[in-house]
């Protein structure tokens, strides 16, 4: 099939727009491994900056990962049962609660952080520990976990599945862990990846809540941009990318797999 000028002009525009977005990313990544960014690539490539960043900010990076994992644990333990209650017992009260839960996403992180500071800023042991940042992260990420799990839960007929399990003699906890949780797995996984990604990348809130001893990865990034040479900042970005990209790809893969499963259900035919 011959393609006309319209096709090629559209293709051209698409490529230009893609380059517009992709080139800065490549430039930034390259800057992180260039000996001297002002001289350009001719100055040669090096891992020096990355190693330097690693030396300077290991604590921040590890703290970020640690907070993300603990945040994940907390949102799992609270978010999954919460989603269950919201879906299983719909009513005005649960509706109100759902709205309240979503509020931290809507109001600016700075305002949320300020509220936490005003309320708990005086509790010195708490204020200066990483638990303070964790609190902010949990508040911010919990709605994403709950929403993601609740979406999957409302798509399956939980009431009927539970009645089926109960008729076979299974008590509440057994039903919850052998039927509800395994079937909500796609939502739980998607929510978990979302929580980890958001927690690792969270800046707004964290910047307000951190102390010099409780710096997370993005806060360190801002610090590097502000006070170090450009190569260090870029190298830092590179490390951030390496951490966050696999999570994003995993999220996408999960979403695709979810679609495939529902398609298979539709095509199952009646033969017996």
């Amino acid at each position, binding site marked *: 099939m011959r393609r006309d000028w319209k096709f090629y002009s559209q293709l051209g525009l698409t490529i230009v727009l893609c380059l517009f977005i992709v080139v800065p990313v490549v430039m930034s990544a390259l800057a992180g491994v260039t000996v001297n960014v002002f001289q350009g690539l001719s100055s040669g490539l090096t891992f020096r900056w990355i190693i330097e960043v690693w030396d300077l900010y290991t604590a921040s990076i590890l703290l970020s990962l640690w907070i993300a994992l603990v945040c994940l644990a907390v949102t799992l333990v609270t978010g999954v049962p919460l989603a269950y209650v919201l879906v299983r017992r719909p009513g005005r009260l649960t509706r109100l609660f759902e709205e309240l839960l979503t509020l931290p996403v809507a109001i600016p992180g700075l305002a949320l952080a300020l509220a936490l500071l005003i309320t708990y800023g005086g509790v010195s042991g708490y204020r200066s520990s990483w638990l303070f940042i964790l609190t902010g992260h949990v508040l911010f990420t919990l709605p994403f976990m709950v929403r993601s799990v609740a979406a999957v839960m409302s798509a*399956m*007929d939980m009431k*009927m*599945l539970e*009645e*089926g*399990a*109960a*008729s*076979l*003699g*299974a*008590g509440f906890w*057994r039903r919850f862990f*052998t*039927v509800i949780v*395994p*079937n909500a*797995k796609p939502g739980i996984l998607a929510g978990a990846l979302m929580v980890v990604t958001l927690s690792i990348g969270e800046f707004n809130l964290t910047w307000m809540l951190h102390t010099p001893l409780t710096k997370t990865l993005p806060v360190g990034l801002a610090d590097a941009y502000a006070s170090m040479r450009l190569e260090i900042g870029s190298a830092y970005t590179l490390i951030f990318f390496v951490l966050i990209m696999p999570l994003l790809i995993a999220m996408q893969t999960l979403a695709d797999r979810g679609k495939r*499963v529902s398609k*298979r*259900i539709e095509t*199952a*035919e*009646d*033969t*017996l």
Partner: protein
Amino acid sequence: MTTQIKLRDCAKTFTDGTRALAPFDLTIEGGETIVLLGPSGCGKTTILRMIAGLEFPDKGGVITFDGDDVTHQSIEKRRVGMVFQSYALFPNMTVAQNVAYGLKVHGVSREESDARVKAMLEMMHIEMLADRAIDQLSGGQRQRVALARAIAVQPRVLLLDEPLTALDAKLRVRLRTEINALLRKLGITAVYVTHDQEEAMALGDRIVVMQKGEIAQIGTPREIYCKPQNPFVADFVGAANLLDGQMRDGRLHIGNHVFDAVDAFDPRHGAIIDQGPVELFFRADGLSTCDAAHAHFTGRVEAVSYLGERLRLTVSGIGMHAVMIDTHADDIITAGADVHCQINPDRLTVFPARGDSTTAVSQAR
């Protein structure tokens, strides 16, 4: 080893105040298959869920299994097998794992469970599907798995809530025959809910016809079909034609015609009706076409539907409403023609006239 189920004075009022069930008594004998039949919203599913332990009767109601009071027992403790319209299979488990679930809950040993699962799958002719995921099964296959899962735990009663409604017509008949054979073979007490009269007839030892939260009639399929005790049941089991008449000194008058030897029994008062206005319910065989000389009525054909082995006419001008009349498939009759017909008095079911409650029946359908 079969369980007799008794419900005494059971009523159900929902939290918003609506009365789902008026107080009723029902005894289901051990090994018997009872079908709860009625239109949607008649309370049949509520009775099933009460027996299951998913709903509880209002204060005063008592449910016993073989004399044990289970009224306040939760479903987990009652040992009931349930089969749902939409299967309720666990999508996270294979077919075999689904069937084994109840056995695991009841602490049956691994070897015994494996053997029992195998036997169940063989009984339902689905042993080749053991390792399949649920989402790879067709509707008919899923319902077989659901049946296998429900009977694997050897329940005291098997409860089936419209299990065939989600399936297509041909499959429905086939699976119905299989369920019937299965229930006879197991000899288990079973309660089957449906809105399908044919299904009820095919499966039930006895049928409970429900109307608006009350039991309209309990009887064998033959009793329900041939001796409906009230207009609702008559209408629901297919005697949907209605004519008005008069009883005078034990003889039935319809228009200018008089018929002898018609049983006019008033079930509400338990007496023969001698005098007064009556309503006549009959199926499409209650009237037949004939030549003008022998005709009781002449009506106008409104519509003709070809049913294969016979022709069904919708005829107006005989009663208040149009009536259905069946005739030979090779008769040539077109809409708009006049048709002469004869009453077959022994095919009539006679009830005392209800005044304006006639409309209530047609609405309930």
